[in-house]
């Protein structure tokens, strides 16, 4: 019996941390992880942030990023233990036998050089292929990956192709030296859902055609289920579960895996709209200063008290701009906004204090939405003091009540944002918005920076609060699973226009318009063979047309 291509045994990875008030000490990031990878197979590494999945992926190249060290175990690639290999041999291996695809292609390509030069570099340097041969290979790969104009795309510069295309170019870069193993580190996470599916199909086809083995790292179980043969679930550097994709998805054994598989299973009954809307946006058109392109054109939506309107679209569709117009940060060029049956002035400065109070906002990045120099108590307490004039013990009590509402204890009162976890930060931001006793909260991608399970908790909290406080949400997101979980009505935006709008049941039921259909069918589903089904379906439709 031949050895597998990659054999990892009891891998231990550690790093040194430098806490502000203590001596530097060593911590373990990965504990005794073992796995095998055969030629031509794909292993998915999945876990939340901090699970050690990227660290393990990079260890297949015997590389530790930012002070991370491999402290024990064995990493066998092609019959060699990489941990006992000299640095010069490792250099030959990296980029030759093992290659790497990173999350952000835009940040990884050299903007000053043509794509072709960068794609063939590793092949020419590491595998001593001559340039003409390497270029021919690259063009073949461009074709396999479904890039437009494969003969000439290599002569473009990185900024001249789209994000999804660049990610595919990077896959070509990794495959060009004909490696034995490719490490994909979250290759589709930064992409829109409609772009992600194309890249996924391209990657899958390329893996199949070249027969290369791959480690596929992601936090999205639905994505990894489409491309991998085996899946390893990681949490805090430990292996939670390791098995075939079929077993992990259809028959998970561990509680943590079960939670991951069933995430976003919140059931939400659609509410019936009242006769008087809380917010009415009529014929809104807006553009940024100094440009003559309408970012929003003729947008009409309504939101009823105590309900949720989800605004969905890919990046650049104008959904965040709509939030800025409603808050008054970007005055519209035409159209009217009616809030609580009175007209809202266009500019934020001209609005009454009660308008400002009743319309609150929660941001995507909780990190930057809170002043790092203010304690949780100050952050939540300021709106109480500012709008209602609470002081002293009364204010303290109100802050504690709010902390209780977001399921956090009084011990958080004097903490600074840096001392909170990602989910806790977002909860504090919710409490700050609630402190103003608003009628409407604009949620701008509030869960997209969070891990799935944490995001789930935040969504449940928001729904719970809506029931108790009767607050309406304008929920901006690109994630359709979130929309299904919380929305009462939905507006689908594309290039600054609302292309589909109505109650959830209507928007998510056929017949669809082309864009909504594309959007809906692009959301990865947690089942095997989904990607093939979509591909086949789209091929049939294309043939039918």
């Amino acid at each position, binding site marked *: 019996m031949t050895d597998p291509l990659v054999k990892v045994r009891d891998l231990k990875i550690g790093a040194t941390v430098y806490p502000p008030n203590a001596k530097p000490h060593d911590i373990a990031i990965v504990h005794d992880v073992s796995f095998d990878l055969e030629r031509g197979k794909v292993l998915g590494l999945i876990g939340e942030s901090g699970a050690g999945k990227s660290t393990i992926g990079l260890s297949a190249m015997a590389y530790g990023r930012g002070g991370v060290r491999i402290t024990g175990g064995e990493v066998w690639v092609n019959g060699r233990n990489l941990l006992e290999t000299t640095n010069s041999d490792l250099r030959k291996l990296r980029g030759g036998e093992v290659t790497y695809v990173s999350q952000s292609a835009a940040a990884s390509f050299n903007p000053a050089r043509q794509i072709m030069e960068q794609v063939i570099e590793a092949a020419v340097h590491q595998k001593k292929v001559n340039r003409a041969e390497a270029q021919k290979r690259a063009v073949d790969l461009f074709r396999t990956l479904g890039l437009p104009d494969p003969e000439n795309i290599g002569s473009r510069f990185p900024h001249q192709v789209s994000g999804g295309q660049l990610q595919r170019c990077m896959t070509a870069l990794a495959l060009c030296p004909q490696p034995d193993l490719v490490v994909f580190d979250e290759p589709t996470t930064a992409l829109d859902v409609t772009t992600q599916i194309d890249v996924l199909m391209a990657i899958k086809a390329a893996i199949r055609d070249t027969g290369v083995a791959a480690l596929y790292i992601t936090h999205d179980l639905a994505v990894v289920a489409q491309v991998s043969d085996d899946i390893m679930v990681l949490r805090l550097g430990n292996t939670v579960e390791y098995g075939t994709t079929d077993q992990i998805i259809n028959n998970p054994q561990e509680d943590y895996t079960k939670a991951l598989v069933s995430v976003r299973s919140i059931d939400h009954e659609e509410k019936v709209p009242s006769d008087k809307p809380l917010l009415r946006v009529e014929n809104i058109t807006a553009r940024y200063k100094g440009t003559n392109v309408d970012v929003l054109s003729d947008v009409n939506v309504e939101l009823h008290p105590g309900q949720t309107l989800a605004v969905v679209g890919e990046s650049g569709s104008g959904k965040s701009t709509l939030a800025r117009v409603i808050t008054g940060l970007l005055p519209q060029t035409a159209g009217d906004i009616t809030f609580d049956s009175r007209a809202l002035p266009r500019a934020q400065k001209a609005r009454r*204090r009660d308008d400002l109070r009743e319309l609150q906002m929660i941001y995507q990045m909780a990190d*930057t939405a809170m002043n*790092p120099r*203010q304690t949780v108590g100050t952050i939540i307490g300021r*709106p109480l003091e*500012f709008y209602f004039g609470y002081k002293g013990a009364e204010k303290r009590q109100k802050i504690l009540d709010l902390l209780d509402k977001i399921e956090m204890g009084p011990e958080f009162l004097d903490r600074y944002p840096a001392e909170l976890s990602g989910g806790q930060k977002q909860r504090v931001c919710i409490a700050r918005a609630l402190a103003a006793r608003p009628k409407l909260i604009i949620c701008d991608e509030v869960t997209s920076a969070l891990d799935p399970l944490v995001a789930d908790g935040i969504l449940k909290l928001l729904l719970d609060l809506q029931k108790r406080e009767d607050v309406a949400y304008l929920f901006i997101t690109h994630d359709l699973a979130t929309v299904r979980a919380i929305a009462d009505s939905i507006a689908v935006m594309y290039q600054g226009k609302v292309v589909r709008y109505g109650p959830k049941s209507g928007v998510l039921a056929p017949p669809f318009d082309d864009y909504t259909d594309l959007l809906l069918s692009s959301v990865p589903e947690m089942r095997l063979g989904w990607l093939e089904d979509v591909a086949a379906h789209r091929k049939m439709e294309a043939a039918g047309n």
Partner: protein
Amino acid sequence: MIKNIPFAAMVGLCFTALYFFVALFAPLIAPYGMAEIVGEVWEPASADHWLGTDNIGRDLLTRMIYGGRTTIFIATMGTILSFVTGSVLGFLAAVLGGWADQLISRFVDLVMSIPSLILALVILSVMPVTVPVLIVVMGLLDATRVFRLARAVAVDIAVMDYVEAATLRGEGGAWVIFREILPNALSPLVAEMGLRFIFMVLFISTLSFLGLGVQPPMADWGGIVKENKDGIVYGIGAALWPAVTIATLAISVNLVADWILNRTTSLKGGRG
């Protein structure tokens, strides 16, 4: 806290503290009166006069101590004035943006385009040269440099979501500037303060040397150099003592400033 201070910063801190201590308690420490003539012209160092006497027979150590008091006082006041004006205007420009920013920034550019020493000489030649006037002129001229830094730092902070959140809440400019921006801009500004303080010491010494700074019989380090510069020709070292004190003060304050800068810009702590 104390044991974490690196050796160089500790040395700097000790010397800086020593200079400020001497400046504060000058009348108690100095052996003679400030303008008291106690001996012959340019006597060498002796038990009575540790550094000798100056060009008209005053005790040089006494002059140095009182001179340090004047120099450090003016430099400190000038630095405080320049930081208050510079950073308030800088934050204001960053927060207001638009034409207000243009107005303030272009005016500052205009002032900065004229070498500050020449501008100071022109202004002081038409104004009565008193200590308050010196402080105001030097402080305002130096505020242009502080403005540049404060504005650059604040522009980065003003686009953060938490500032937008405060604006959306309806907060006024004072809260935004003093509660949202200032705490986050403080560390780079404090580090810059150390450097600017030394520039102030050099500035006031230069002015005094040229005769448009502190007026006799008051003592200050630049003035002592001016009074005793002719002695150098005869091998009298009296004019060199102020140079020694200015140099050591500059180095020690900079050692402290470097340490603060290192602490606050390290990757581990971010702006924290």
